[in-house]
């Protein structure tokens, strides 16, 4: 007894294949779309900014004269910001993710933390700015320092890192943990030696996205009140500083046409910084990537 009508199957085959081909094309187009936009964006910025991108641009502080304006304080400031954000956010994020995935019992408190984190991930950055201003700048009297801004940004990107790390930790096969426990390894040893190394690619993906965000954010720092003009470099995390997007924001709002080009040059620097960060992470990711 044959229930499947093979003629129907045969008849449907061509249309299914066509559908597959068409959608594959559409998926491809969608992918190119993103790249195309990036291309246009980069082209415009490049064309406008490349003329200002010389060695002096990196050597000089901000200036009222477009030819003399430089990115030094902002670039170094952004790096300082990352020096605070990366370890703080990564440590807190990983710690939380490990706690949630490995230690936390299934109870209302744990689900409350989880809910809380996914909600925090959606809280607009500008609200973190208000938080940073109230808690770090004012209450803890950190002023408009690298530390105050860095902590604000850490909290901002924390949820992204937590969620990515959780996802990565969860996807480490159970068999690997069992193997480790089976050798008498403690939970912590298992986490450090087996789970985390296997989860690194995933954790990195999330962290890149998070750090890129921290580097490119303007709104919360505007609210925190990071100054614009700085003609010196911070010596430690308690010094005041400025960052690339703030500097760019400022240049774009200048009346002089030349500053638009200076801004474009600044954007180029920021993009190069992002590309640099991403390539480090991609390198590590590819190096560690294992398929089980």
């Amino acid at each position, binding site marked *: 007894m044959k229930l499947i009508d093979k003629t129907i199957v045969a008849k449907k085959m061509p249309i299914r294949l066509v559908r597959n081909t068409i959608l594959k094309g559409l998926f491809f187009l969608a992918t190119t779309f993103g790249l195309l936009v990036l291309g246009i964006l980069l082209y415009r910025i490049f064309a406008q900014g490349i003329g200002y991108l010389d060695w002096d641009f990196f050597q000089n*502080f*901000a*200036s*009222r004269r477009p030819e003399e304006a430089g990115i030094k304080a902002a670039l170094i400031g952004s790096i300082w910001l990352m020096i605070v954000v990366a370890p703080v956010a990564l440590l807190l994020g990983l710690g939380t993710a490990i706690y949630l995935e490995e230690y936390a019992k299934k109870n209302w408190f744990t689900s409350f933390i989880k809910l809380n984190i996914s909600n925090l991930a959606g809280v607009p950055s500008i609200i973190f700015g208000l938080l940073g201003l109230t808690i770090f*700048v*004012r209450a803890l009297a950190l*002023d*408009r320092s690298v530390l105050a801004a860095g902590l604000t940004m850490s909290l901002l990107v924390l949820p992204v890192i937590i969620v990515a790390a959780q996802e990565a930790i969860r996807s480490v096969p159970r068999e690997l943990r069992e193997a480790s426990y089976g050798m008498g390894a403690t939970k912590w040893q298992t986490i450090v030696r087996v789970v985390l190394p296997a989860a690194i690619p995933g954790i990195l993906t999330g962290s890149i996205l998070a750090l890129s965000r921290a580097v490119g954010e303007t709104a919360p720092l*505007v609210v925190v*009140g*990071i*100054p*614009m*003009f*700085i*003609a*010196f470099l911070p010596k430690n995390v308690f010094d*005041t500083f*400025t960052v690339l997007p*703030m500097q760019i924001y*400022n240049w*774009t*709002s*200048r*009346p*002089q*046409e030349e500053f*638009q080009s200076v801004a474009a040059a600044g954007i180029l620097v920021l993009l190069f910084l992002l590309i640099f960060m991403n390539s480090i992470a991609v390198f590590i990711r590819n190096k560690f990537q294992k398929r089980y």
Partner: protein
Amino acid sequence: ACGSDSAKDSNSSASETDKPLQGEIAIDGSSTVYPIMEAIAEEYMAQQPDVKVSVGFSGTGGGFEKFIAGETDLSNASRPVKDEEKTQLEKNKIDFTELELAYDGLSIVVNKENDFVDYLTVDELKKLWVEDGKVKKWSDIRPEWPKEEIKFYSPGTDSGTYDYFNEVILEEEPLVENATLSEDDNVLVQGLKGDKNAIGFFGYAYYAENQDSLKVVPIDNGNGAVEPTHETIKSGEYAPLSRPLFTYVANKSVADKEQVADFVEFMVENAGELSEEVGYISLDDKEYDKDLEAVTQLKK
């Protein structure tokens, strides 16, 4: 007290010669005033590289917020301090001195293709910009003008520029509801360039930089149409649309921190020249002298 006085005197004279000063100066406030203060800070730090001057960009209101909290030494403002802010400052025992830095001339601007608007009177301006519940056409202002709908571009309602316009032109009546508002004057420039029936206003510097692609409208305040130019603004002939820009200094900072005192002096001496350079109009020299006097008072 006597000893410290003499120490200060010797220091302030030394600042112009050899002994370098140290310390920090925190400045924040109006984004309109920012370019002037940036220029001053830049020049000052060329002379005193060990003084760390930081200039913020938080807007007049935001600047005062920090000034009230005692976080800044100077607060830039594109309007005089408000009563609420004064109350707060008194509450926090922060005495301050108001210093004028420069003028900004608000420019009324239309699209380059607009060939019929030759000038506007202050009354016409008000008629144009006040909300009256109707769709506005050019022909509503002068019958010979085309019957086309006007597009309005205005700085954001929270800017000093808007505030000033509101006060002197609108006289606190509501602005046309369908006006397009933006915080960023460059953004307004873009709008006016693209829109044939557009009219808008913003700081003089933004017009000066875009003279080729925009058309400025002379204003008649009863004494004939006056176009905003460097001279007409400085002389006060371009009225009523030029406004002063300020910075507020905490008296205590000047008294306690020698680098602040030194900076403020430097600022008053150079504000005229430097504000011209970044696109504003300098005050009369007498005004700066008055400022200088006030500062010297504080140091005592």
